[in-house]
């Protein structure tokens, strides 16, 4: 059930983990990092058991659809990394590998006409909200067929048709925007909800606190989903945040909040559904702290010298895709051959996305000067 702010007040924050100070002082970590998988999270076996209990409430096609989406964005990101290394993709490229359960689980809980805004680690959210992998890959390639016609790139994907409102590259910048979208839906008295994704580092920005205050003050149907992957670029949560229990920060604004295991796609979905219920019916905001982990660097240019291989491997034991596929298989929802079939299909879909991006033309040179103003005033010549 949803934890109210009252529940959260009772919870004692965890003490800072031993050894965190040592980690802050070193550069390259050559020994085991002090970071443990969070004590509030269940081990892999228990996650699977919980997932299987939830299967009863979901039909097989929904479960398979969720798995397919997760695998699609995993394969998409693997291909993005390849294309980036081959020089096909420029600029920054922040991969989502390891965090798939968050975007896929949460977006599976909303309607097509609901809104999504997120940060610069956004390829998966864009695809999950309904932008085609072709249009996302073409945007990465900087092509005219991209979802932002090549003007946004990896960090600025948009699609008005599916209510995907970016792709924002200043940490926390999307949080006031999403609050405004939620304000507008309440103003127009629709029952649409807005999902706002951001990393845990954004929680230290004023934009987060200012937005949550307004959202509860004015009762706005915005669901704030903090993807806590435990690192803001190369700086660990321990080194950046005085109170690391992020869900507890909702108390300051009397907002309902939950701590969610971000490696369990169905737990994310369920928590989001509860938040959606509050938002749609009563115009109430929610803060979800979703504990996850990124298996890749912050971006493609990250040397990764702030954490150990062992730490990454510990988290990979709770790989959201592996946990979910094992649950599906063990419960007989999907067979081994079906799993292979899905993999073949999504690989083909990603290959098709690459082909589309390769073949899509570059933006026409005159596009440099379009879209600056909606009502342009002719230059005085």
């Amino acid at each position, binding site marked *: 059930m949803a934890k109210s702010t009252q529940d959260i007040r009772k919870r004692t924050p965890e003490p800072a983990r031993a050894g965190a100070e040592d980690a802050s002082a070193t550069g390259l970590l050559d020994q085991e990092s002090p970071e443990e998988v969070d004590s509030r999270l269940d081990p892999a076996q228990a996650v699977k058991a919980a997932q299987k209990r939830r299967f009863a409430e979901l039909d097989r096609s929904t479960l398979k659809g969720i798995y397919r989406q997760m695998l699609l964005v995993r394969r998409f990101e693997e291909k993005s990394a390849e294309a980036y290394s081959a020089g096909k993709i420029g600029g920054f490229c922040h991969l989502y590998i390891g965090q798939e359960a968050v975007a896929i689980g949460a977006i599976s809980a909303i309607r097509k006409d609901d*809104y999504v*805004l997120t940060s610069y680690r956004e390829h998966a959210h864009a695809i999950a909200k309904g932008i085609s992998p072709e249009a996302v890959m073409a945007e990465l390639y900087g092509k005219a067929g*991209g*979802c*932002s*016609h*090549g*003007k*946004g790139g990896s960090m*600025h994907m*948009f*699609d*008005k048709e599916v209510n995907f*409102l*970016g*792709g*924002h590259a*200043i940490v926390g*910048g999307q*949080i*006031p*925007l*999403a*609050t*405004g*979208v*939620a*304000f*507008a*839906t309440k*103003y*127009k008295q629709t029952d649409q909800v807005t999902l706002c994704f951001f990393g845990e580092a954004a929680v230290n920005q*004023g*934009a987060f606190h*200012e*937005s949550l*205050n*307004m959202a509860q*003050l*004015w009762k706005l149907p915005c669901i704030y989903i903090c993807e806590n992957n435990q690192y803001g670029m190369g700086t660990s949560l321990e080194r950046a945040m005085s109170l690391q229990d992020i869900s507890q920060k909702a108390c300051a604004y009397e907002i309902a909040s939950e701590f969610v295991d971000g490696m369990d796609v169905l737990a994310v979905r369920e928590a989001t559904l509860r938040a959606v219920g509050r938002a749609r019916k009563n115009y109430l905001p929610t803060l979800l702290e979703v504990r996850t982990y990124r298996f890749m660097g912050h971006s493609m240019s990250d040397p990764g010298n702030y954490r150990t291989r062992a730490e990454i491997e510990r988290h990979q034991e709770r790989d959201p895709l592996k946990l979910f596929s094992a649950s599906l298989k063990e419960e007989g929802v999907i067979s081994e051959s079906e799993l292979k079939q899905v993999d073949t299909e999504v690989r083909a879909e990603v290959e098709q996305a690459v082909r589309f991006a390769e073949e899509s033309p570059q933006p026409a040179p005159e596009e440099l000067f*379009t*879209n*600056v*103003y*909606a*009502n342009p*005033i002719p*230059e*005085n010549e």
Partner: protein
Amino acid sequence: MAIVTMREALNQAIREEMQRDENVFLMGEEVAAYQGAYKVTKGLLEELGPKRVIDTPITELGFAGLGVGAAMVGLRPIVEFMTFNFSILATDQIINSAAKMLYMSGGQFNVPIVFRGPGGSAFQVSSQHSQALESWFAYFPGLKVVMPSTPADAKGLLKSSIRDNDPVIFIEQERMYGLKGEVSDDPDFTIPLGVADIKREGKDATIVARSLMVPVALKAADALEKQGLSCEVIDPRTIRPLDINTIVESVKKTNRVVIAEESHPFCGVAAEIASEIMERAFDYLDAPVKRVSGADVPMPYAKNLEDAAIPNVEQIVAAVKEVAYIE
């Protein structure tokens, strides 16, 4: 037509546009129950209700961003900054979100929003409350920047800004809220953005002035007239996009130009106008372009020092004489 103050003209513009379009709403610090820190929004809460006239917490970044988000999905917010000094806290959302959204979304999401409030110097409010920030905002493609100098311009330009589909920075002047002038009461009265106004015709020299410097320049022109110099005073009204044609045409006629502004000279709007004139009308100039700007210092508190920091009639008169080579 009626004689009203700048404050009342702005109030009329907001009221008429909110009556005209349900999607227009007003938010900012003290705009509702308090009736506006400068009373520009007086009576609007009572008339239009709390859904559309909203007092915000003191949270400029937050409510500026909220406004941009609301504008992305079809509302038309008017966001008041109690003064533009406080917009500095909101610049991430104005510059990174509002100005760039249409471009980086490949033309999909325009942001019809007005950020308005007083800018420039007030009366002895010292450094952090006396700043002319127009050159900051005018620097960014995607923003429009408007600065009225009369009640009529204020009303007509604000109505156009609210109807415009792009983000508009609308900078009023605190010292001018009580300025009176004739204003149309026709609800269809608007003044297009991007069109300069010739406030006074003349043939011997051009004075380009905006906002608070327009009445100062007009007084200087009166004084110069008595000394046998006929000055044309041009108010660009919109800083971006700038109606450079009107300025250049005037310079081609007078061959001499002085640009007066309240802001700091370095990287200011006058520097940009001077450069444009040089590029477009160099051969017509009989003297170097002359700027009269605010002192290049933070605004002091002491009355005598504050007075010395803001351009006055005498300085503009002297500058015109200089470009006219009159001792």
